[in-house]
């Protein structure tokens, strides 16, 4: 496999509903932004690009099969090769890695990965039904299919096992909404307190409405290239590209039904020992084995032995405040069971922002400096690609250019990770990107 670079990206403004356009022009907004940032217009770019990968989760939300090809033709990319990727919430992360494979394998020099979701086409209750169809329809969905309920059951077990508190979870909500306050692409830009989070309507105990991401309409596009591809693009635009190198990718899986998850031994990362976890039954429903596997493989490819030391920031799949805490542990930022405390200490907060909280260790490793899913929104097929775009901008040091302010710029960011997550932890992807 050969080196792969991310050279550009774009994101549509995530919002509750985009009735002004259908999904194709929404993707074009993100695609045109990515091209503009490269200094290219479509007719010149299309001479160079070899193909694309499309990312969208639900045919139900669209009530339209083959939406991918409708984006491909609207963008003017026909008759170039393309295919659709689908894997629940991890659809965007999978799409990014499929584009990586297309380039790493030598099949393509330049590949576009675009994604979108239009969740406003049904009301929220129906949307929750569609999402819950991503659980076993014989055994899980009919019992009360509701993803917030599933995640609530997982965190109750995390609380039982490790003593995690709802206030620790609320720290994540405060952090991500506050970060998004400075991100013009985000859907929910709010300055909140711990009390606001806990006083919000209870959705599935102990998760309140401010512990949970919202449904969104949105699109994102990324452009990946080989070294040859980078040269071709630079030659065409006459401009130097500031790419990020994708140095590691990893994926993991787990059983669809939470009830089926094993209770065995922890899958260890290089900086952990079996003695750290005596008596812990793993993954149970308190941890995501798929997230651990994805992290392990991505770290191995990138040569990372201690993620806390090796990474400067992470954009991870915080569909719930609880799952951000669980993911800290899966990714090895702290030991299993320490995620709640790690959040409360402020380790994942930005060091330079005032959150109105007394934090002991602010800014050890900023997580979701963009605002994450909780505050940016979660138009499923776009989400994993949005993370890649924000990660590229962090590594380029170009947050100010794209956000209009540099409050969210992680100073001196050299290496970051993006993490995309499906179902109750069924498919998870981790990709590592480095400044060149």
């Amino acid at each position, binding site marked *: 496999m050969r080196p792969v670079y991310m050279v550009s990206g774009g994101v549509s403004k995530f919002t509750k509903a985009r*009735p*002004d*356009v259908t999904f194709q022009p929404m993707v074009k907004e993100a695609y045109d932004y990515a091209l503009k940032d490269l200094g290219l217009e479509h007719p010149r770019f299309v001479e160079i690009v070899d193909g694309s990968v499309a990312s969208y989760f639900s045919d139900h939300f669209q*009530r339209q099969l083959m939406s991918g090809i409708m984006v491909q033709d609207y963008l003017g990319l026909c008759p170039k090769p393309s295919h659709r990727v689908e894997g629940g919430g991890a659809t965007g992360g999978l799409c990014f890695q499929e584009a990586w494979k297309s380039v790493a394998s030598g099949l393509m020099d330049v590949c576009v990965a675009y994604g979108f979701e239009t969740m406003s086409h049904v*009301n929220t*209750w*129906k949307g*929750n*039904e569609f*999402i*819950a169809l991503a659980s076993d*329809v*014989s*055994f*899980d969905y*009919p*019992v*009360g*299919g*509701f993803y*917030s*309920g599933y995640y*609530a*059951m*997982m965190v*109750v*077990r995390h*609380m*039982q096992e490790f003593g995690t508190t709802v206030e620790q979870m609320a720290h994540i909500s405060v952090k991500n909404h506050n970060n998004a306050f400075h991100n013009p692409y985000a859907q*929910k830009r*709010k300055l*909140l307190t711990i009390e*606001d989070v806990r*006083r*919000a*309507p*209870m*959705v*599935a*105990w*102990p*998760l309140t*409405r*401010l512990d949970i991401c919202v449904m969104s309409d949105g699109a994102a596009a990324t452009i990946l290239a080989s070294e040859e591809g980078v040269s071709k693009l630079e030659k065409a635009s006459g401009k130097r590209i500031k790419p990020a190198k994708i140095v590691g990718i990893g994926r993991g899986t787990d*059983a669809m*039904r*939470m*009830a*089926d*998850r*094993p*209770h065995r031994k922890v899958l260890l990362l290089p900086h952990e020992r079996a003695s750290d976890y005596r008596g812990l039954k793993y993954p149970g*429903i308190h941890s995501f084995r798929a997230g651990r596997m994805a992290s392990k493989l991505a770290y191995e490819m990138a040569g990372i032995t201690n993620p806390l030391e090796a990474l400067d920031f992470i954009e991870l799949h915080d569909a719930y405040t609880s799952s951000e805490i669980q993911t800290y542990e899966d990714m090895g930022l702290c030991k299993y069971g320490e995620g709640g405390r790690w959040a409360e200490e402020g380790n994942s907060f930005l060091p330079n922002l005032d959150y109105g909280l007394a934090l002991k260790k602010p800014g050890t490793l900023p997580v979701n400096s963009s605002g994450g899913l909780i505050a940016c929104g979660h138009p499923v097929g776009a989400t994993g690609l949005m993370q890649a775009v924000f990660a590229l901008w962090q590594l380029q040091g170009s947050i100010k250019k794209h956000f209009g302010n540099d409050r969210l710029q992680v100073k001196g960011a050299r290496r970051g990770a993006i993490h995309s997550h499906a179902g109750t932890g069924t498919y998870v992807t981790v990709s590592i990107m480095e400044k060149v």
Partner: protein
Amino acid sequence: MASPKRGRLNRKLPDEGPVALPETDDGTVLFNVPFPKDLAQLKAMAPIIIKQPYQIDYIHSYGQDSPFFAGLANGKLLGTVCTKCGYKYATPKLHCMDCGSECDWFELPHVGAVHTFTVCYFGSEEFQKETPFVLILVEWPSIDTLFLSRLLGVDPLKPSMDWVGMKIRAKFRRLSKFKPTDVYFVPA
């Protein structure tokens, strides 16, 4: 669709707007819209939004899992056990996830314990009218996996971590619906 439970069970979100009439999606039948003489003005036109109903009856077979549902109809809770390694599934799997061998049916005890729970105050459309309801994963000491069910006989407005570990007993619907909710649990 506005939730009827919203006002009663949940306080107002800090970010919710002022007091207002509920918004519904039943809309109005409209047969024509104004149109400008100058076509250049069309790009400023507001989007036309229509309602497209969509209803499907699926012919869903439970296939190899069918005996589980026949069991519920006869007051029996069935799990499966691997014929080779002995791994025991509380939610049936007819092939072992661990060793790949075939599994046999066996009867689960009617008394288990709450492994974890939640109370759903909101839900997806199909279950919205049933809120608040309590979801649980049931555990048994000698069984390797869990079982998703509903817990009745506790106050859904007073959830407590004390529910974890609670001994519970299976009850069965007399008139089966051939759904996993033909069994549910109550405190033992």
